[in-house]
Each structure stands twice: as structure tokens, then as C-alpha cells.
């Protein structure tokens, strides 16, 4: 029996998860987000444009209390197609010839 849950074409828009319970309202997420996904609120950051998230991960890496989780990654279509065709693990744009080495 195939597991349907492993289907990569899941319907959620992105992988952003925010737990306002943990938020200490430091304001960093709203200042690092390039799409205004988070905005400053009274006492807590507000997830105001969930659908605009492009999973860059800036909020997650800078949140001091771990209230934000997002599976960030380089959305390089060519690399993903290659990975899907070769059934390899998805890396990123490959070697240094594309966009520099990965750290």
C-alpha cells in the first residue's frame, strides 16, 4: 500500500508554522521578513500574510524563542527537477558553477 501522505504535492501553501504562545514581541520577525508576512502587534507578532511566505527562513533563524518554524531552502526549479528525475535527494543549484558553494 502506497502512503499517500508522502505525496509532495500537498495542498498547504507553505511550511510556515508560528506559535504565538512563545512570542516575546521582540519585533525581529517583522523586520527581517521581505514580504510583510509578520507585522508588529500589541504584545505579540501577528502572522498577517501567511500566503505571502516564500520560506526564506529569515524569521526562523532570528527568532530568539523558536516560535517560528519553516522549512527553508533554495527553490531552484532545475535542481528539483533533476532530483525528481534522478530520484536523488534534493540539494540545491548543484555545484559551485551555479550559485557558489553551500555551507
Amino acid at each position, binding site marked *: 500500500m502506497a502512503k499517500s501522505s508522502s505525496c*509532495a*504535492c*500537498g495542498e*498547504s*501553501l*507553505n*511550511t510556515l508554522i508560528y506559535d504565538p504562545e512563545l512570542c516575546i514581541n521582540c519585533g*525581529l520577525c*517583522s*523586520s*527581517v*521578513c*521581505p*514580504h*510583510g508576512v509578520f*507585522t508588529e502587534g500589541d504584545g505579540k507578532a501577528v502572522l498577517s500574510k501567511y500566503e*505571502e*511566505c*516564500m*520560506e*526564506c*527562513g*529569515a524569521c526562523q*533563524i*532570528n527568532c*530568539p524563542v523558536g516560535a517560528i518554524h519553516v*522549512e*527553508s*531552502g*533554495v*527553490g*531552484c*526549479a*532545475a535542481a*528539483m*527537477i533533476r532530483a*525528481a528525475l534522478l530520484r536523488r535527494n534534493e540539494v*540545491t*543549484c548543484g555545484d*559551485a*558553477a551555479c*550559485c*557558489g*558553494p*553551500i*555551507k
Partner: protein
Amino acid sequence: MQTALKSKPEIIPTTSRLTGRDKWDHFLARCRYRRMSHIVSPGLYSLGSPGPESQIFVSANYTLSFDALRSSLEGIDCYILVLNTYGINVWCAAGKGTFGTEEVIERIELTELKNLVKNKVLILPQLGAPGVCSQEVERRTGFKVEFGPVRARDIKHYLTNGKATPEMRKVNFDIKDRAILIPVELIGLAPYILVLSILFYFISGFWSALAIAAIGISGAVFFPLLLPFLPTKDFTSKGLVLGVVTSIPFAYQSIAWSDEILTYNAISAIAWILLISPWVAYIALNFTGSTTFTSRTGVRREIFRYIPILAVIFISGLILSVLLGIGSYLGWF
């Protein structure tokens, strides 16, 4: 006597003025010429005559990034700490972690920044944030990280206001941002366009060669320009729409400018559409990587949703073409 051998880290003087040579380098970078070689040496730079309290800005060692920053700092005495991002811009390097926490920390140590300044605040470009954990940098170096605006040209406003407005914090992808990508896209596709159109010229004639060129130009020039105006939401379906439009002249010529009978012409018109449109869509799908608003989840979904569809469309076109060939040989039409 090892300490005697260790030279004091160099502070490299720079200016906010861009020379003709800088602009020529920018032009070449925009044309994809030797794209990994538009490099500035990583290290500490001084602009004007900075003192211990002067501001410290952080940038990538890509000429376009570094030059955008320094040319926006005219009249400001400051330091610029250039990270080693291997000649990659801030945003892409941050995505990979080369514009990252470890590199910031290492560069602070290598340049002995701590001994040089009293000011303990680093101003990083906002688009470096995906790679840099500000708390970690502060914990390990004592330097506080402040994320400045997205665009270097807003820095002076940022410094006067003491904070970035929501507008300064947002990335745009306006017509100028999109148009400037055209040479890179086009030059990237050029070898394929050239080889394939010559090849197809000899296999199946002038119109096939022209179709290859049309696919390339449509995908690399018109797609970026028309992006927000194309209907539908995702890139591939937008590309498919543009692809159908691109193929219309080819479909039209096969009906209008041909003497052969109607069935043959109609099938051949459909074949043109099926053969051309998926390739424009495919180029469009790959353009997602050049934008600043597609998520990995979104791109992956597009790939799984559309690649099979594009393949079916193209293969149907191929089958129709083969049938037309066999058909006219056997006298079906």
C-alpha cells in the same frame, strides 16, 4: 616570535564613487559574462575617514552588492565589512549560508574589528537575514546585529529615521527589476537557441528554426516583462498561456500560407501549438528561481503538477507531427 610575523589586518580604503570601470564590470555581470568573477576581496574597508564610533556596514564580495552599498553611502565616514560569499549576491548567499552567521563571526575575528572600534553595532542588509542569526553573532562576538533596509539606496533614510519603514523592508519585483534580468536569461539560453535552430533548420526548415528562437525570446524576454499581466497564478500556467500566444503565428502560417488540404493544415496548426507552448512554460517554471517571492514548497508543487502535463502536451505534438509525416507519405490527405 610568531606574533612579530603576524601582520596587522589591512584596512582597504574605498570610495562611494563608481568609476567607468565599475560600471563596465556591472554591465558585464548583467550580461552573465564570467559570472563567478565579479569579486571584491573580503575584508574591512574604510569609506571616508571613519573613527572608533563610526558605523559598520556588512556586504557580500560581489561587485554589484558592494558597489550598491558604497555608492549609497556618499558623505558618510564608515567601515564596510565584506564577507566572503564567493562572488554571490547577499540574498542568494544568505539562502546558502555563505552570507551567514559563521562567516560574519569569522570575518570579525580576521579583521580584528573589536580592537578597532568602540561602536558595537553591525548594520547588515535585510536580505542577509536568512543566513544570519543575530543573537548568535552578538553572543559570540559582542557585536549587535541590526538589519538595515532591503535596498542600499534607502540607507540614508534609514540612518536619519533610525528605523526602516515597512516599505523599505519589502522586496519588489517591478518592471525594472524584471527587465534587468533579461540579458542574463537570454544569454543563458542563447547557446541552446543557436544550436537547436540551426539543427532544426536543416531537419524541418525555416519555420522550425524560427520557432526555437521564438521559444527562447518569449521565455527570456516577454515572460519576465509580462509576468504580472499574464492570467493565472503560478509561473508554469502563465508560461503556458504565453506559449500558446507565441505559437499562434506558427499555427496561423500553417493554415494560411499553405496550399495543402484543410485536415492536414489544421492538424499541423495544432501540432505547432502543442510543440511550442510547453517549452515556453518550462522556461517560465525555471524563472521562479530568479524571483524573490516563490517558496520552495510552491515551486515543488508546480513541478509535480505541471511537468507531467507539459510532457504530455509536447509528446502529443510530436505524435501529431509524425502522423502528419507518415500520412502525407501514404497519401492520407
